[in-house]
């Protein structure tokens, strides 16, 4: 129920964007509140790292705050937002590769914050599965991974993905198709290993 309400709020954030464009910080605060979780989860799936995801999310909203007055079409806010987030993701990824720094899917802090309610076995299996999917997702080429996250987890339309990535809709579909195929193979290999 909460998720449905959240989605409704996101789709009705137009007035908040307009107010934010005029410099209304209170409205911008609300706008961030609506989109923070989405951008965080997008970055989290991109990196499989809580700290990096938080870093990218904060950088994204700082940039949005600085540049929202230059946004011409309010309807393109969503694509614009994901485009900024993706740019920061790629930038951080390059920096991380330079540092040769790797991390696990969920940081120790995040593990501790997560509750242990329910059956421990189920919790463990769920976590195992999440880690497996995050791992195979991480191993996909960047362009396929990005489209899968945007489509599968963020629910963007093909048109929106194409706009955010500055590619054609057909290219977006093609990347998604081959991405899903590659993901299937990786999952099968991982399951075989286990």
């Amino acid at each position, binding site marked *: 129920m909460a998720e449905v309400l959240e989605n409704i709020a996101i789709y009705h954030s137009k007035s908040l964007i307009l107010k934010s464009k005029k410099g209304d910080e209170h409205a911008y*605060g609300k706008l961030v509140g609506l989109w*923070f979780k989405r951008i965080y989860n997008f970055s989290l799936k991109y990196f499989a790292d809580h700290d990096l995801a938080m870093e990218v999310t904060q950088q994204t909203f*700082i940039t949005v705050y600085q540049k929202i007055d230059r946004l011409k079409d309010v309807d393109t806010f969503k694509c614009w937002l994901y485009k900024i987030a993706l740019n920061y993701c790629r930038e951080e990824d390059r920096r991380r590769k330079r540092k040769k720094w790797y991390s696990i899917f969920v940081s120790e802090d995040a593990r501790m914050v997560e509750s242990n309610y329910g059956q421990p076995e189920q919790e463990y299996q769920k976590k195992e599965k999440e880690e497996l999917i*995050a791992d195979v997702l991480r191993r996909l080429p960047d362009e396929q991974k990005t489209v899968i996250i945007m489509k599968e987890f963020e629910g963007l339309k*093909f048109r929106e993905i194409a706009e955010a990535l500055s590619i054609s809709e057909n290219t977006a579909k093609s990347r*998604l198709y081959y991405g899903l195929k590659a993901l*299937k193979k990786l999952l099968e290999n991982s399951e075989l290993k286990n």
Partner: protein
Amino acid sequence: MDIQDFNKELLDYLYDEMTPNEKKEFEQKLSGSETLQHELRELTAVREELDGLKDKEVMEPFSTWGKTRSSRWFDSNQKTRKIIFRPVTAVAASLVILMLVGYLTNFSISVSGDGFQAGFSSQVKAEDQTFLSEAEVQSLVNQEVQRSNKALIARLTQAEEGYNQKINMLETSLKSVENRDRNAPVTNEDLQKFFVNAENKNAEIMKEYLKLTSTQQHEYFRTMLTQFNDFYRQQREDDLTLIQTSLLEMQQNQSVQKQETDQAITSLYTTVNQRRN
């Protein structure tokens, strides 16, 4: 890399991005094609797998936006909206940490007429310390050298007396030989014995002299080194005790803080639970 048209339609169908008419048409195609059905099943299965990766709940950072909160990230009064939070907070946090550590360890720095002082624990007053002036140190060294010289001279005098006695004995024996020379002829054997005897005695004298001086010097240096070692050991022990005390104090402070934090968290948790109930 491109995909065939039917796969594009398949993706539109899979993600429900078709108009009702397009959907109907595609479903007809689908029912007549095993390949399409197989593709659809495969892609659906992958999507189901992906469904296992759920969104994580995340709290928007406390100091983010809004009129009351934005000031920590942005200087909203400036037209440029320059980002200030990162360097400022980093510097401020470093300063706070340094001050806290300094406070916990009782670190102090002072500059006075007596000189510059920096260290843990309470400040040491200059009058409490007994410093030796350069002249006093020189005087102590001179005294020590004089004492050592006196002892050496005394021993040398003693040795000299011993040698004199031995020389006298030699002279006496020489005289007896001379006397004997006058009374009876000296044989080669007598002369050989006399020189062997003299050589042995000389060697003994030299040996004793060298032994005496080397023992003296050895003892003197050993005493000096022992005193020096004792002084540094004492100094090290004092430093270690001081550091240990400071660390213990820090540890105690941390334990108190941890307990306070735990209590605060427990209190918050209880309050939240009560409100929920």
